[in-house]
């Protein structure tokens, strides 16, 4: 009898823990509500490397402007069924020679509490500027890529991704 009650209380405790994750609740909001709240929404929990997209871009480019460029081919899904595994691919149409090459590709997001995903430092040995990975997105947001060339200039490109089930919980 005692053991049955003990197991019951364990089950209730674990059920409470799984139900009450704020991240899960936020991520399951309907698309309509998300469109309204996305502008003013703050990240639900503070992470160790919090940084806004604007600050991250400043850190990468300094005071220099990153121009929109169609030399950058950013491939992401329009709708991510699973926000925990969103494929991101960046290709840059630029030589990779000693005097002129893509120095780095930076992948950023607009709504995770840490907007930095990855910095990739390339060399001419890569021969073609390309990087692919999979990222976690907490909610519908933009993926932005900043590309730095060896001549000190910066280019950028961005795409929106609808996230149906948030990937950070």
């Amino acid at each position: 009898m005692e053991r049955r009650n003990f197991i019951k209380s364990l089950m209730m405790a674990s059920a409470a823990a799984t139900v009450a994750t704020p991240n899960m609740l936020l991520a399951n909001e309907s698309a309509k509500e998300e469109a309204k709240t996305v502008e003013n929404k703050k990240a639900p929990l503070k992470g160790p490397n919090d940084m806004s997209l604007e600050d991250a871009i400043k850190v990468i480019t300094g005071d220099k402007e990153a121009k929109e460029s169609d030399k950058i081919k950013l491939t992401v899904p329009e709708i991510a069924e699973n926000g925990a595994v969103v494929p991101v691919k960046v290709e840059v149409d630029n030589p990779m020679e000693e005097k002129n090459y893509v120095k780095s590709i930076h992948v950023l997001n607009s709504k995770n509490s840490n907007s930095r995903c990855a910095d990739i430092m390339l060399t001419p040995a890569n021969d073609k500027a390309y990087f692919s990975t999979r990222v976690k997105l907490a909610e519908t947001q933009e993926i932005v890529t900043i590309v730095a060339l060896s001549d000190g200039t910066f280019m950028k490109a961005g795409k929106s991704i609808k996230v149906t089930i948030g990937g950070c919980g």
Partner: protein
Amino acid sequence: MAEEKKARKAMIKIKPKKYKVGDTVKVDFIVIHPMDTGMAKDKETGKIKPAHYINDITFSFDGEPFTKMKVWESISTNPYFSVNYKVTKKGKITVDYSDNLGEKNSKSKKVKPKQA
């Protein structure tokens, strides 16, 4: 007694499988790693899982780095990274990677170009 170093499962894939000197191949690196953000709760204990994510990766060929990466916790669990590499000779690609808790690991794969 010294703690046994946890061997992490990692894989380097070179695509295509058959290539010659002068070809540019795709180098994929996949590793089993939680990439915990420090914001998610453990479903069993209800406690926040501390941040534990790979943060530095270096790809080298015969000891010479050709790609470096700095990555953060927004990368998916069991991360996948892919870059290009121009094959110049027979040798070995090594990926050295470390995480925010100081764990360092390494994985290598031989580069074996076919004779032209």
